[in-house]
Each structure stands twice: as structure tokens, then as C-alpha cells.
């Protein structure tokens, strides 16, 4: 999932760094059920994620994902149903294709494409939802903080 590049000394201040903030777009037909299941089972999860329920993962606009990153939200997850399982007649195919392309754009500008988590079909069960989320936080903690992207503008420009 995405590039992992070791950043050496710069860029990663473990001690002072706040936990990454995550937004999860959860489709009501599987991911939201997984989230509900995790709650019922009292699975303890990291604090810093907020769920936005949507009817279908296909509803999720790339603009909202991009905007989330611009607010300093470190990771965005889009959780939908598996291929063949979309309650809205394969609407999720469009989401999958679109989000794959968005990952290309994010990667181009140096935003690790791993910051956009797409999971289609693996969030339905409580342990799956919990597992996906915990893995995502783990992965995000391994990346340099996103606001470094904006701060990079003040670092000495590389001669182009």
C-alpha cells in the first residue's frame, strides 16, 4: 500500500507528534455495519478517527478527500462493498476506478498514496473493520506528518 520511503533524521518527530487524524467514509451497507459491530464487541480503537456515513462508496467525491488532506487530516479511508456486492448495482466499480486514479495524482505530488485507504469488501465484520483501522493508523504513523508537505514550501527550494 503506497510508497514507504525512509526519511532519516528529518521529518519525523516521534515524541512531539500528535496522533494522525483520520476520516473514514463508510458505506452504510458493509463498513458501517462493521463499525457498529466493532462497537458492540467493545473493540477498543484509536481515538482520532471520524466516520462519515454514506449510502454508497460511489458517493464519495475526490474533492472531499483532497479537502480533508488540505485540512491536515493525515489519512482518508473509503470503505465500500466488495465487487459484485454493491447494493446499488455495481456503483462501487466507479468508485474503485476513480480512487485508483486519485492515488496516482496524490503520488505524483508526493502525498503518499497510502494515505488514501480503499477497502472494498473487507470491512463488513467487526474484526475486519477494527483491523483495517488499526493497520491504517500504524501505516500513517510510519509516514512523515502531512503538514510537512505545506511546510516544504518554506524549505530551501531545489534548483529546478
Amino acid at each position, binding site marked *: 500500500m503506497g510508497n514507504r520511503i525512509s526519511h532519516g533524521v528529518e521529518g519525523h518527530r516521534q515524541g512531539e507528534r500528535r496522533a494522525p487524524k483520520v476520516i473514514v467514509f463508510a458505506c452504510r451497507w458493509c463498513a458501517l455495519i462493521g463499525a457498529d459491530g466493532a462497537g458492540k464487541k467493545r473493540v477498543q480503537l484509536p481515538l482520532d478517527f471520524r466516520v462519515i456515513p454514506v449510502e454508497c462508496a460511489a458517493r464519495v467525491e475526490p474533492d472531499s478527500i483532497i*479537502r480533508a488532506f488540505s485540512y491536515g487530516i493525515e489519512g482518508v479511508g473509503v470503505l465500500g462493498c466488495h465487487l459484485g456486492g454493491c447494493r446499488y448495482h455495481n456503483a462501487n466499480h466507479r468508485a474503485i476506478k476513480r480512487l485508483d486514479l486519485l492515488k496516482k495524482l496524490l503520488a505524483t505530488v508526493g502525498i503518499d498514496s497510502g494515505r488514501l485507504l480503499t477497502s472494498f469488501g473487507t470491512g463488513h465484520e467487526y474484526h475486519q473493520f477494527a483491523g483495517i483501522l488499526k493497520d491504517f493508523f500504524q501505516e500513517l504513523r510510519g509516514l512523515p506528518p502531512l503538514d510537512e508537505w505545506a511546510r516544504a514550501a518554506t524549505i530551501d527550494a531545489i534548483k529546478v
Partner: protein
Amino acid sequence: MTILEQARQIARQSLEQGRAQGVLGLREAEGGVSPHLFEDPSDIDSLVVEPKWLLAKLATGILKGLPADYRLAVLCRGCDERAIVELIKRNQIDGEKIHVIGLACTKEQARACLCTRPYPSEVAVGDVVEGVDPFQDERARTFLEGDQRERMIRWATELRRCVKCYGCRNSCPICVCVPCKLEDDLWVGRGEIPADLISFHLIRAFHLCDTCVACGACQDACPENIPLMLLQISMRASLVEKYGYEAGTDRERRSPLLSDLTKEPSPGCEVPGWMDSLGDSA
């Protein structure tokens, strides 16, 4: 015959033979070059084909004010024609009213734009030259590949010079929306310069992900010389690789992002079984 002479001859003939009531092209006048609607064959003497200037958006606009039976000929480079095709597909131009006079770009022009397809579908003026692979260009590569952190710094350094002139959006032939999301405070934040590095530029770039025709008008218009074309390159390459799709090359085929995976005729894109989507956790 030089390219200029060829262009003038064809333009003149289009008017004289009644194939078109007007030819949209460039005119040299008063020491400069500007777009011009040639309706009188005798004016064609002032027609020029340099520099590269996209006429698609202008054509869309002026057709609205012209009579319903007006046929407009447009002197188009490859990218311009692709833009016209995209506008036809998106119902901004009536394809019946436009007649493209195809102009091929020279090798130097292709290299300057890192253009993969420096020629229109039918070439009436000039000779076809091979396209350029942007991934072979050294400078372009530093923006597309290599060390992620360096790339991030590179892009941030470029984008921070943005003064939000909206030149990129205004000059893009595909951008026609009113209202435009890039003017919405909720999405890009108003009243700040530089524009929010991530939201303004990535929202704009992704809105065009499957309709960008790589004309470079955005880049040409940018007063800060931000290499905006390079934002699109990886996405365009991905669409070609996965779906054999290139914006502006087919008048019928819409973006593959709109269709069901099972319906899209995609070379190299197999219909995954439902088990495949479960990945490693299956």
C-alpha cells in the same frame, strides 16, 4: 509550399468553396498576433499559424452567437482538436457545426510541450512527427518519479508561487462550469495567497483527470511558470494503460471512469472476481 502557405490555401478554399462561412485562426495585425474569425477570403493573407494558441474555447463561445446554420472551420493542432472532441462529447459544441482543418506540430513544438500526440486525426497542413514520451524528459521525471520527499518539495516549491490568477482555469478549454468549485470558499478557501497548496491545485487537476487533452494551455497561461501539465501525466498514462483511453481521440467513447468494470472494453483490465477484491484478508 511552406506550412504557412498550405494553411492559407486551405483556409481560403474553405471559404471560397462554401465549406465554411468562417475560419477561426490567428491573424497578424498591428505588430502582434490575435485570434480572428476570417470570413472574407481576401483577409486570409494575414492568417498565421504561430504561436501555439488554443481556439477550442473561443470556438465554443462564438458559435453561440452565430446563426444556427453557420459552419465554422477551425485551424487546429492535435491538442486543439482533442479539446473540441471533448467539448462535443460534453455537449458544449455541436459537432455538426465545426469543421477541423488539421495542423501538425513540428518536432520542436512537440518537444516543448512534451506532447505524445502532436497531430490531429486528419492532417491537412504540415507533416506528422512522432510524439514525445514525457517520462523520457529529465526535468519532467523529477516531478513524476524518484524520491518522494524530493518530489514533494519540488511540487510545493512550485505551487507556492501561485497567485490565484485563475489563468489555468480560464484558459483550459475543458473548463466551462459556472459556478466553479475553485471559487467556493468551502473547498479552496478564499482570500489567501498562495492558494491552498493541496486543495486548489489537486481539485482542479482531478476534475480534469479523464478529460485533460494535454494542450498545455494552463501552463502557458500561468504567470509563475508552474509546470501544471505535469500534474496530469501519471493519470493520463494510467488511463491508457488500464483502459486504452485517451481523452479527445474518440467522439463516442466516454470516460472509462463512468462505466461498470464488466462493460468497459479494457485491454489489460480483467474483470476481477468478487474474491479478488478481498485481497490478502480473504
